[in-house]
């Protein structure tokens, strides 16, 4: 059981062909585009949801921050759909790979920081020193703030990876435990119930995206405006 516990996280290849390309591109099939005013149910539902999310999320930054709306909305759609598809049995979730999450986190964070530096240099540099610190503490605090700045992309990526991976592993483990306990009756019902609750909680993987994009947005906001 130990070996096949982690087998679902191996990059899927078939006959040496990278299947992972197809798996990463698959969620785009589920979001059709249409240029009509009145669409079918699938597209209408998706448009309604997208409007809800973008209004809630893009009302906070100012004009310059709002130019990132397309990027952030596609980000939340991608991560949300990928995580939800990973809850289906036997499927592979690309966001469990740290490489992919780092590839998403680092460019976006770097873009936000560099935008802030270019447009408001003094204000961005001022972030490194909170107001009202006593003079002897200043060198120490600058170092600490620098470290906390550079740890942001790593935290974004590792947070997403760890959450999704841990959720999948827990489902595997508890499912296996339930099967093993099938022969012993009363415990089985309790554990199956726990699995059900865990899956429901895990379906708030969508909340994961919320956390991801929101954190990203907060960082972007801070660097562009204040």
């Amino acid at each position, binding site marked *: 059981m130990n070996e096949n516990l982690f087998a*679902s996280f191996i990059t899927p290849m078939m006959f040496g062909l990278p299947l992972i390309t197809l798996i990463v591109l698959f969620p785009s099939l589920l979001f059709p585009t249409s240029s009509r005013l009145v669409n*079918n*149910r699938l597209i209408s539902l998706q448009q309604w949801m997208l409007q809800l999310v973008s209004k809630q999320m893009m009302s906070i930054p100012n004009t310059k921050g709002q130019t990132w709306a397309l990027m952030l909305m596609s980000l939340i759609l991608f991560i949300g759909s990928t995580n939800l598809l990973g809850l*289906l049995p*036997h*499927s*592979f979730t690309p966001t469990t790979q740290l490489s992919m999450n780092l590839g998403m986190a680092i460019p976006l964070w770097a873009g936000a920081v560099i935008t802030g530096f270019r447009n408001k240099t003094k204000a961005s540099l001022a972030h490194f020193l909170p107001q009202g610190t006593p003079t002897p503490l200043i060198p120490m605090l600058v170092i600490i703030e620098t470290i906390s700045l550079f740890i942001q992309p790593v935290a974004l990526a590792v947070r997403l990876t760890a959450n999704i991976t841990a959720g999948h592993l827990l489902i595997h483990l508890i499912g296996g435990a339930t099967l093993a306990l099938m022969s012993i009756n009363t415990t089985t019902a309790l554990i199956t119930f726990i699995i059900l609750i865990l899956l429901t909680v895990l379906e708030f993987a969508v909340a994961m995206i919320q956390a991801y994009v929101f954190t990203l947005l907060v960082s972007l906001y801070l660097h562009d405006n204040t």
Partner: protein
Amino acid sequence: SQDSKMASVVPLKEKKLLEVKLGELPSWILMRDFTPSGIAGAFQRGYYRYYNKYVNVKKGSIAGLSMVLAAYVFLNYCRSYKELKHERLRKYH
């Protein structure tokens, strides 16, 4: 009888799969367009056939999306069958 005479002179290349007789099947397959743009065209046609039949209708139901997800689960199962073979019901894992 006039209709069946006209139908039998439709050239092989333009028949759809279900209208091809069994004896003509190998030559029909060999005549298909296997260039990359031909294969892409086949995927596009298939996609739009499914989309217009099940999703792009006035009262589309959950079945349109569920069939796609079921096919996805099935394909992933096929992909990982080799590792799953060892997990068949046995006494000690």
